[in-house]
């Protein structure tokens, strides 16, 4: 087991390195001068030069690249050119909001995926099954920002049921803040009105993202449960007179889960990408909004830092999923 974990970690390193390299070079190939974006068009050339020097942009690109790798290895993601703050620090401030959104979205996706997928597999070939397949294709093709906008229109503008922007109402933030995840902080503090407010703000964004992601889960769960349902242990269970519900959820679903778990881990990357769009649509103050803000101001350090942060995060999640999988199902290790 130990050696398996070590191999997995070892394999992630080249992956992260490749991402770091791509990010670094793509950002530099793009047009647009970060110094001018920072200083504005009216800055005198001498100031521009000095700034370039200060940011190390006048060094040969390979030297810049090596410096960049060295710094990241030390946990130094550079300083934002917009605020002058360490990028990692800024990211850590924004991360809880994104984590909150992704966890709730994941919950929505898993919930829909498992129930709809299992039932569709059980009712193979019936209208329910067909509806599940149509649902997955249909929902998968939803652009997140469009779907978000529709939910905002229906539940916000027309029905006035739910808020459409931000993480909380004005002056309804938990106090004190422990984790930065408002729902959690509100529970810790016992501030129930704040908790209610946070949950209300969470519903639409997490539904948006969760429903879009759920399409893949529905398909995956359906396919895997169909497969397990045809296996002999199911026939055996039925022959022994076990209740259908138990057969389906306790026997078939449980055995169909390991590959689904792997997919869920991989979906995390998609989830984070979707989170960027969802955050923008719902003015959610997380890493996605941060990234888009900084792209506009060509904040190299911040853009680089965010992507690297995402990459490392996804790598860690996928290692975790693999390890859990290997633990549940020893066959995976070989």
């Amino acid at each position, binding site marked *: 087991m130990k050696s398996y974990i070590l191999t997995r970690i070892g394999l992630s390193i080249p992956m992260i390195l490749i991402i770091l390299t791509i990010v670094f070079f793509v950002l530099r190939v793009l047009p647009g001068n970060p110094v001018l974006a920072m200083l504005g068009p009216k800055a005198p050339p001498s100031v521009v030069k000095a700034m370039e020097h200060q940011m190390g942009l006048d060094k040969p690109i390979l030297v810049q690249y090596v410096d960049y790798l060295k710094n990241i290895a030390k946990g130094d993601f550079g300083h934002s050119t917009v605020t002058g703050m360490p990028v990692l620090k800024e990211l850590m401030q924004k991360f809880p909001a994104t984590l909150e959104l992704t966890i709730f979205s994941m919950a929505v996706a898993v919930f829909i995926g498992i129930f709809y997928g299992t039932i569709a597999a059980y009712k193979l070939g019936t209208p329910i099954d067909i509806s599940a397949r149509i649902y997955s294709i249909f929902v998968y093709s939803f652009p997140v920002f469009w779907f978000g906008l529709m939910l905002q229109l229906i539940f916000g503008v027309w029905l006035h049921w739910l808020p459409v*922007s931000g993480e909380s109402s004005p002056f309804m933030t938990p106090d004190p803040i422990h984790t930065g995840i408002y729902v959690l902080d509100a529970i810790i503090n016992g501030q*129930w009105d704040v908790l209610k407010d946070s*949950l209300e703000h969470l519903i639409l964004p997490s539904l948006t993202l969760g429903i879009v992601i759920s399409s893949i889960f529905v398909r995956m769960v359906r396919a895997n449960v169909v497969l397990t349902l045809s296996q002999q242990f199911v026939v055996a269970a039925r022959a022994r007179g076990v209740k259908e519900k138990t057969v389906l959820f306790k026997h078939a679903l449980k055995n169909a889960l390991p590959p689904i778990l792997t997919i869920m881990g991989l979906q995390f990357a998609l989830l984070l990408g979707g989170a960027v769009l969802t955050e923008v649509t719902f*003015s959610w103050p997380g890493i996605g909004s941060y990234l888009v803000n900084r792209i506009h101001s060509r904040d190299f350090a911040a853009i680089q830092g965010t992507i690297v942060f995402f990459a490392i995060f996804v790598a860690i999640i996928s290692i975790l999923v693999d390890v859990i999988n290997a633990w549940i199902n020893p066959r995976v290790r070989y």
Partner: protein
Amino acid sequence: MRKFLNLAIAFFVLVLLIGGKALAISPKNYIIIGTTDKISSLDPAKGYDYLSCNILQNIMEGLVKYVPGTTKIVPGLAKSWKISKDGLVYTFYLKKGLKFSNGDPINAKVFKFSIDRVIKLKQDPSFLLSDVVKKVEVVNDTEFKIYLKYPFAPFINILAFTVSYPVDPKVYSKDKVYNGIPVASGPYMVKKWVRGQQIELVRNPYYSGKKAKTPIILVKLYRNANTLYIALLNGEIDVAYRTLLPQQFAKIQKNKHFISMVGPSPFIREIVFNVKYKPFNNRKIREAIAYAVDRKQIVKDVFNNQVTPLYTLIPKGMWGHKPVMPHHNIKKAEEILKSLGYSKSNPLKITLWYSPSHYGSTEAALALTIKNQLEKTGLVKCQLKSAEWATYVDYWNKGIMGMFLLGWYPDYFDPDDYMWPFLASSASNGMGSFYSNKKVDELLLKARKVVDKKERAKIYYQVQEIMAKDVPYVPLFQGKQRVVAKPNIKGLLLDPVQIFRYYLLYKK
């Protein structure tokens, strides 16, 4: 697992059902303003975009300020001032006992520090001071003198602009842009600033002027017009200022749950020609394009009549304005192009550049409309290209774009600010035009030195005539300010210098 799920759902429903909103702060005490603008920097030495300046205008005050709703200058932190006969020395007398929001004193030394600092930091707006200020001399705690390099009539207007606001020497470093929470000298101060999301302003207890009417102002930043519009319709913001789409605004005007206002704006838009770039180095081609552009159609089709056509760079309503540019005349445009040898089989091939989001969501439609108007002559083939703002800025500085769309907000309310940055040889490269004309340079410098308004207006008429002949720019239209609010919001004021005053707002 099942039990846990049930429990979770029950808990969730319970939380949603019980407990009304026990807001700690009464809604009467705060107003939420939504906007699509961004804040780039709240250091007066650096902030130069609309919202950065507008926030500064609500949390800081300069030596002088505008009377709300007018372009009249009155004392701000200064009690009074004297201008020497030759127009070279400005002596200011400060009010006594002035303090920053952290309790630090505001005195003559602070002003010297602040002005010197702007010039030293050389950020975006620094040229406003560094071009004219020679030195600042402290006489005593409440008196100081500003020496100019040459007499400069609009100087007092510059002192009303954000770049001249005082900063606390104990907090702001002499040689670094400040990124923290600003120290205020105006009606409000910043309590909390979540970058890219929102900024919370509360009353500044040390402010010596009139108290702000509402204790707390929350400015929320939205990504685009759609998200702002939906938040507005859902009642999440009290005021939407800058910038809904024209269609959205037209819809809201008919909605009885909101009040809306339209006011003048000093904002202008124009086509810029890089006069060194082929084929725009040919004056005649620029002229033909100026004839081909139909401003009335642009105003109607793209902006729902929410802007007004503009035929010079100085906006209508400001003294010195003279509509000199040719009106739409497609025949004239065709004549000129034909005389240059262009025909249907051999059209003039050009590229028009625009930046898709910097000027709001209407920009692509604007570019497309202009392209169609030019192609209507049958003698032009116009390609559209776009670049995001940071790239765009880079491109025009490097002279990569020959013809592109740009806009302008004044730094100080004076015709000089609509002429000098565009037409003076020393400044026009900053606009990507690279225009240079000795006669114009002479006239512009002269207009800066003359004090008499009528005399100056005459000079600006002359400059505009030359501009109409040389056509380095095609002014397109002049903006209007639009604001939407809930009906219980009072004190909305759209003033001609486009300072949106949060401190006059209150809830009924």
